[in-house]
């Protein structure tokens, strides 16, 4: 159990830079999720922490020890791999105890730890089986068991759920969270699935093109993204991005989305955007903040109407697709309030939850 510190971490393969200077402070017992699209450097970062990948530049500390040149086995970490990486010729018990046997842990101590871990994971009956005889979910548990018996300072997870079917994935997600609550340890977890990141993380690290875009709690990432990438990556369905301009409208400011639609900016927000009047910007709004017309409780909510082009019922809500000045926009509406395809429908946008993005820097203003 320790904190992990990454200082200006870099990784270069031949000509390509996979990781381009990462600074991250992972706290004691914290569950940190590295998330991003494939090729963003998240797995490379994890493998550098594990010691499976050499560090081109920068420093990694586990506890207060610089571990750049410490071999993986001496870093006191355990890792769960995407393909589980169970030794096919060993039984579950042998798989779990392999690391301990190599470290010459006394036999009765090994037995005690294996049965403890098997108890946590509910795999007591599987100990004498071989990996081939296990289902995907069971293999996943064994892979975690192998990590737990080691009682390491940190757990590293490399996309551990991506080989499971959708239902099992959700189940194992909850399982992992429970296990973390039981086995209090620092966890670094890599995934490309933002839902996994949101549900599991104490803190999310969004990576893109080898750098960190933003670090924060799941709620912060959702409510206050700093960049267009984070805004689009976190949240499902994804945030709408509509080209716009901030214009002078009457006494205050307005966001002009098209010739027909100009949304009045509430006065409280006006100051923030006054410097950007008449510049081309991007208006970001999540589908859940663009709903069927509702009774207003405050001035932050603005009405407008649009023609419905596609409907996707989800049960709880219906996704309504409309076109605003050539851009497809998704709204999330109560099923009973939706207009049929081709008809006009009135929407309410919650301006409290909108973001304006500078297209030159891709940063949220």
């Amino acid at each position: 159990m320790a904190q992990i510190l990454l200082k200006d971490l870099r990784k270069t393969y031949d000509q390509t830079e996979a990781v381009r200077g990462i600074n991250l402070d992972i706290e004691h017992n914290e569950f940190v999720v590295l998330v991003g699209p494939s090729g963003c450097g998240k797995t490379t970062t994890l493998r550098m922490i594990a010691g499976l990948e050499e560090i081109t530049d920068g420093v990694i500390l586990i506890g207060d020890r610089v571990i750049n040149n410490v071999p993986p086995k001496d870093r006191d970490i355990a890792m769960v791999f995407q393909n589980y990486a169970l030794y096919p010729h060993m039984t579950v018990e042998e798989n779990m105890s392999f690391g301990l046997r190599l470290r010459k842990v006394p036999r009765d101590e090994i037995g005690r730890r294996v049965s403890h871990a098997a108890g946590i994971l509910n795999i007591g009956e599987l100990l004498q089986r071989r990996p081939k005889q296990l289902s995907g979910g069971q293999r996943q548990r064994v892979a975690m068991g192998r990590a737990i018996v080691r009682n390491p300072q940190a757990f590293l997870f490399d996309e551990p759920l991506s080989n499971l079917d959708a239902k099992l994935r959700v189940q194992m997600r909850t399982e992992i969270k429970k296990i973390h609550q039981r086995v209090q340890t620092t966890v670094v977890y890599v995934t490309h699935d933002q839902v996994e990141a949101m549900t599991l993380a104490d803190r999310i690290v969004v990576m893109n093109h080898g750098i960190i875009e933003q670090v924060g709690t799941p709620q912060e990432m959702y409510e206050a993204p700093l960049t267009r990438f984070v805004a689009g990556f976190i949240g499902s369905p994804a945030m709408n991005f509509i080209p716009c301009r901030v214009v002078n409208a009457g006494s205050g400011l307005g966001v002009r989305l098209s010739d027909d639609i100009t949304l009045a900016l509430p006065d409280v927000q006006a100051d923030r955007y006054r410097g950007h009047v008449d510049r081309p910007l991007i208006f970001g709004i999540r589908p859940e903040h663009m709903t069927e017309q509702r009774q207003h409780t405050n001035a932050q909510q603005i009405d407008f109407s649009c023609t419905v082009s596609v409907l996707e019922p989800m049960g709880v809500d219906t996704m309504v697709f409309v076109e605003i000045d050539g851009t497809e926009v998704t709204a999330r509406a109560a099923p009973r309030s939706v207009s049929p395809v081709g008809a006009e429908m009135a929407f309410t946008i919650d301006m409290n939850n909108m973001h304006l993005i500078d297209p030159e820097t891709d940063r949220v203003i």
Partner: protein
Amino acid sequence: MTTPQPVNAPSLWARFATSLEDQRVLGYVLMAPALLLIVIFIAYPFVLGVWMSLTDKIVGTPGTYIGLGNYERLFASDIFLTAAWNTVFFTTVATVFKAVLGMWLAVLLNRRFRFANITRASVLLPFIVPTVLSTLAWLWMFDATFSVFNWTLRWMWQMEISILGLVLKENWGFFRGPLWLGDPDLAMASVILVNVWRGLPFFAISFLAGLQTIPPDLYDAADIDGASGWKKFWHVTLPLIKPVAIVVIVFSIVVTFADFQLVYILTRGGPNNETHLLATLAYQLGMGSGNIGQGAAVALFMLPILAVVIIFQLWYLRREGVR
């Protein structure tokens, strides 16, 4: 006026064609060509061989049945016992070297390096060149007078003498170098060396193929579990390559045990029968001396031994298949 043919009477051909609709009949028909080849080229010579080993057939005579007489005579013969022991020794030593060196070579070739593919392909060369040709080249290298090994040794000997400052140069001729194929122990070693050289590529490439099926994740996991390079080999590589290794080794035992070409070209069994193998002895007795009955008996002596090896292989493959 002609009598009208009965329309429904099926011709023989038509009846045959109809019976092909039955899958069992069709199966035998399709198997027939292969079965015929096996009978002509394998079963018949084999049965004939067994029969001849029970006769006193000499070239040109029909031969009469003498029961196990040939075998009795063989067990009383020193040459046969030497050849049998030589075959076991030759096979064991050569296979051990091929397996160990082959594994080592495969592990090296499995690394990523520049020109890896060309290197891997060129390792196969000894395997591709016809054995007779490459063995002739070896024969030349082992030659008593023109041996390139001895030439090199002599040159190094000379170097050593001049480095030591001894004026023995005019005397260098006294170092002739070993008679590779003339000394009994060296001759066996030389024959084994050539067999290892020739068989190594097969082992290396088969093992390499086996190594490449091992997921790299397992080595990452072993790294984190705390396995050193040697322990990774022992606990991960070796158990996972075992099925491939057993098949390759057993196959090689069969081929090495029955090896003929190397010895025939290099030593013809000499010196003093010290390198005779069962195969070369069988040839010498049967073809060389025309004593076909005895030759067949020597050759058949290999049968029960190889049968045990092959049965083991089949049993092992089946067990692995189940697991």
